[in-house]
C-alpha cells in the first residue's frame, strides 16, 4: 500500500483487506462492533476536518505493517532498565514490542479486590466487559481508534473496587526496541474501571528505543465512578521515525475528578485524541499538555470535552514548542449541551515557535447550547518576548542562556506537576538537552 494509492476512489474495503484481519480471538463481538464502526467512519483522509493536517498517507503506509512481536533479549532488558523508575515504588506492567513482557513487569501489592490483568484474559473471563467496551464504540469518532478494537493484540484491564485506593501508582510501560528490518506496528488497548469512591494513579509511559519506523496505535478507556479520583500521566518519548496514534477516552460519573498530564516528545507523527465526557453532575477535569517538536516532528492534539450534565468544570492548558520544521496542532472543542447548565470551562493554548520553518495550528472551539454557563478560551502563538530576553541579558546572561531560560521556563510550568521524581528528572534532562539544541 503506497501513499499515492490513497485517493477518494479507494474505498475502505480495499484498505480493510490490507489491514489483515486478526486471528481467532475470544472477543468476537467487540471486534465486530469496532469493525462496523470503522466501516461507518471510513479510513480518514485529509478531506476530514479532524485529519486536515495529519499526514494520513504516512499512517496508512504503516497501518498494515507487520505486527510487532518479539522476545526481549538481555540487551533489551538493559536498555529498558533506566526506565523502570525503580526509585519510586510502582506496580509495573511492561509491553515490549507489542507483547506483554513478564520479566519486566512487577506486581508488588494490590489492595483487596483490585484486578490488574491482561485485557485478553479479562475479556475471556467477563462477557459483560466486552459488551461495555463494544457499547462505547458506537460513539467513537476516530476511525483509527475504532480500528484498534479489532486489531489490538493485547492490553491491560484494571478494576479498582468501591472505596478502594491503589497503594502504589501503576506504571504502564509500552516500549519499542525494534528488531527486524520491515516497518512494524503494535496495537494495544487498555481498559480501566474505577468504581465509586475509588482512587488510582496511572502512568502511561510510551517509550521508543529505536530509530526504526513503527506505528503504535493505543487506546485507553477510563470509566471513573462516582466520587472517584483518577490521576493520569501520559508520557510519550518516541524514536525519530515513530508514528503514534493515541486515543484516551475518559467517562466521568457524578463528582468524579480527573487530572491528566500529557507530555510528547519525538516521533515523526503523534496524534493524541483526548476525550472527556461528563456523565454525572459536579465532575471536573484538569488537562495539561506539553509537546516539544524538532526536526520533522509533528504533534496533533485533539481534545474534546463534552459537558453532558450540569455543574461540571473543565480546565485545559496546552503548550507547544516547535522548532526545526516541527508542526503542532491543538484542536480543542468544549461542547456544552442544553442540559449542561452551570458548567464552567476554560481552555488555553500557547504555542512557542523557535524556527522560521516551524508551524502552529490552534483551534480552541466552543459549542455552547446552554445559557447559564461560563466558557472562556484563549490562544496565543509567538516567539520569545523581546523584552523578557532583554531583561535577562541586562542581568548578564548570554543570548543563548536567556533563550534557554525562557524556553525552559515555558515548558517547566507543565512538567513540574509530575509528582514522580524519576520520571520528572528524566523528562527535565531530556528537555534541557532538547531545548539547548533548539535555542542555538
Amino acid at each position, binding site marked *: 500500500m503506497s501513499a499515492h494509492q490513497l485517493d477518494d476512489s479507494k474505498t475502505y474495503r480495499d484498505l480493510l483487506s490490507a489491514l489483515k484481519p486478526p486471528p481467532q480471538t475470544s472477543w468476537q463481538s467487540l471486534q465486530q462492533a469496532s469493525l462496523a464502526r470503522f466501516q461507518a467512519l471510513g479510513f480518514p483522509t485529509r478531506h476530514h*476536518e479532524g485529519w486536515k493536517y495529519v499526514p494520513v498517507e504516512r499512517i496508512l503506509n504503516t497501518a498494515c505493517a507487520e505486527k510487532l512481536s518479539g522476545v526481549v533479549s538481555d540487551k533489551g532488558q538493559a536498555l529498558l532498565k533506566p526506565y523502570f523508575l525503580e526509585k519510586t515504588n510502582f506496580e509495573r506492567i511492561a509491553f515490549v514490542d507489542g507483547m506483554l513482557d513478564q520479566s519486566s513487569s512487577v506486581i508488588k501489592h494490590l489492595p483487596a479486590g483490585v484486578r490488574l490483568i491482561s485485557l485478553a484474559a479479562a475479556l475471556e473471563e467477563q462477557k459483560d466487559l466486552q459488551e461495555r467496551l463494544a457499547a462505547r464504540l458506537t460513539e467513537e469518532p476516530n476511525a483509527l481508534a475504532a480500528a484498534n478494537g479489532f486489531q489490538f493484540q493485547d492490553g491491560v484491564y484494571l478494576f479498582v473496587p468501591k472505596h478502594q485506593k491503589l497503594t502504589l501508582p501503576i506504571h504502564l510501560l509500552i516500549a519499542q526496541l525494534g528488531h527486524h528490518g520491515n516497518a512494524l506496528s503494535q496495537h494495544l488497548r487498555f481498559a480501566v474501571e474505577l468504581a465509586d469512591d475509588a482512587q488510582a494513579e496511572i502512568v502511561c509511559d510510551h517509550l521508543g528505543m529505536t530509530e526504526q519506523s513503527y506505528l503504535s496505535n493505543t487506546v485507553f478507556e477510563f470509566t471513573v465512578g462516582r466520587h472517584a479520583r483518577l490521576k493520569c500521566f501520559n508520557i510519550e518519548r518516541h524514536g525519530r521515525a515513530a508514528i503514534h496514534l493515541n486515543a484516551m477516552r475518559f467517562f466521568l460519573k457524578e463528582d468524579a475528578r480527573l487530572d491528566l498530564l500529557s507530555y510528547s516528545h519525538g516521533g515523526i507523527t503523534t496524534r493524541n485524541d483526548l476525550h472527556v465526557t461528563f456523565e454525572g453532575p459536579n465532575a471536573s477535569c484538569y488537562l495539561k499538555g506539553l509537546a516539544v517538536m524538532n526536526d520533522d516532528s509533528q504533534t496533533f492534539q485533539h481534545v474534546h470535552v463534552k459537558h453532558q450534565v450540569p455543574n461540571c468544570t473543565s480546565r485545559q492548558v496546552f503548550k507547544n514548542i516547535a522548532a526545526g520544521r516541527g508542526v503542532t496542532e491543538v484542536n480543542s472543542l468544549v461542547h456544552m449541551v*442544553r442540559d449542561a*447548565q452551570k458548567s464552567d470551562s476554560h481552555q488555553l493554548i500557547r*504555542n512557542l*515557535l*523557535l*524556527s*522560521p520553518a*516551524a*508551524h*502552529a*495550528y*490552534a*483551534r*480552541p*472551539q*466552543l*459549542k*455552547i*447550547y*446552554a*445559557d*447559564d*454557563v*461560563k*466558557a*472562556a*478560551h*484563549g*490562544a*496565543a*502563538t*509567538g*516567539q520569545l518576548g523581546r523584552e523578557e530576553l532583554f531583561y535577562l541579558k541586562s542581568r548578564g546572561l548570554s543570548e543563548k542562556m536567556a533563550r534557554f531560560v525562557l524556553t525552559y521556563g515555558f515548558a517547566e510550568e507543565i512538567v513540574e506537576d509530575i509528582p514522580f521524581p524519576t520520571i520528572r528528572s528524566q523528562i527535565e534532562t531530556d528537555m534541557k538537552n532538547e531545548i539547548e539544541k533548539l535555542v542555538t
Partner: protein
Amino acid sequence: MNDKTIKDIVNREYQYGFKTEVEQAKTIKGLSEETIGAISAYKQEPKWMLEFRLNAFRQWKKMTEPTWANVHHAPIDYQNIIYYAEPKQQKKKESMDEVDPEMKKTFEKLGIPLMEQKRLAGVAVDAIFDSVSVATTFKAKLKEAGIIFCPFSEAVREYPELVKKYIGSVVPATDNFFAALNSAVFTDGSFVYVPKNTKSPMELSSYFRINTEGSGQFERTLIICEDNSYVSYLEGCTAPKFDTNQLHAAIVELVALDHAEIKYSTVQNWYAGDPKTGKGGIYNFVTKRGKCLGKHAKISWTQIETGSAITWKYPSCLLVGDDSIGEFYSVALTTGYQEADTGTKMIHIGKNTKSTVISKGISAQRSNNNYRGLIQIGKNASGARNFTQCDSLLVGSECNANTFPYHDVQNQSAQVEHEATTSKISDDQLFYFQQRGIATEAAMSSIINGFCKDVFRQLPQEFAVEANQLMDLKLEGSVG
C-alpha cells in the same frame, strides 16, 4: 431573567415587513447560458463581460454546494429563481419628484436617507431598488474630486478598463460556489474608484433592497482606492416580509493600494423569517473580501448583522502589502430561528502586517450563532500581529453560540492572540440595574449595548445612531 417577560416581548412583529407594489418587468426564471446571455444583453455589456459570466457559469456547474457551515436549510432550487428583475420605469430621473411615489414611500418607511439627505448632509446615496439604480445623487460633487461612484453596470460601459483590471482580482469567479453563481448572473451593484491622493469628501452610501418575490439578488460591489486615498462606504439593508426564502449571493471586492484606506460598514436587517415558525426569510450567502495590495494600506470591515434567516459570510482581508492593516468589527444578533455562521479571514502575506478582530455574538430564542474565523500568517509575513476577541452572549435557554477559530501560523516572528468568552447576562448585573429602579428590558438593552460598544464605536455617526435603534428594536422582540 423571567420567562414571562421574555414571552411578553417576544411577540413583536417585524416592523419593516411591508411590500411595495411596483410593476416589474421580469425575465424568465431558471439558470442557463441563455439567461446569462439575456442579462448581459439587457445590460448592454461588452463581449468580455459576457465571457466572464459564461466562464463563471461553466465553473459553477462543476462545483457542488458547500455544506460545512453550521446552518440548516432546505435545498435551494437554482432553476426556480428569477435572475433578473427590473422596474418597468427605466427613465433616469433628475430630481426626486419624478421618482415613483410608491417607491418613495418604501424608502421613507425604511428610513433611507433619500429624503433625509438635507439633514444628513454629506451622504451620497446610490439606492438600488431591485437591481436597477433609481437615483444617484451628489454625483457632481464626487466627480469634482475625481471619484467615480456609479452603478456597476454603468461602470462596465463607461470605465471598462478599470472594471476589467480589478473584477475577480480579489474574489475570483471560481472562489466558491456562491461567488461563481454571482459572477455568472450578477445584475448590478456599486462601483467606486477613488483616484490618487484623494480623500472622499463624503461617506458613500448604498441601500440594497430585495423586493420581487422569488427574485434572487446578485449584487456586485467593487471599490478601488488608489495611492494615498480614503473612502468610507456604508451599506444597509432591509427587506419586505415574504414566505418563500430568497437567496442573496453578493460579492464585495475592495482593493487598497499604497497608503490607501477603505472603511466598509454594513447594517443588515433583512427579514429573518417568522420568529414563531422559522418559515421564510432571506438566505444571505455573501463573499466579501478586501485586498491590501499596497504598502501601509488599510481595510476595515464593520458589520451589524441583525437580519436574514441564514447568514453565511466572512468579510476578509488579504494583507499583501507590507505594513498593511486589516480590521473586522462585528455584532451578530440572532433571534427567532435565525442561523448565522459568520466571522472573518485575515490572511497575512506581507511583512509587519497587522489585524484586529472584534466579534460580538448575541444569540436569543431558538437561534444558532456561530463565529468562524481564520488567522493565517504566511511564511514570509515576518512581524505579523493579530489580536482576536470574540465574545458570545446567550439570551434564553434554547439558543446556542459556537466559536470556531482557526489559527495557522507559519512564521515564528508572528504574534497571534485570541481570547473569547461565552456567558449570559449575569443576574448580578441585572439586579444592580433593578435596584436602581431600571426595568428589566431597559437594563438588558443597556447591558447589550455596552457589550457591543467596541463595535458600534467603529461605525460612522449616521450608522451608529441607526445601529443603536436597530438593536433596541430587535432586542425588544427578543430579550426579556
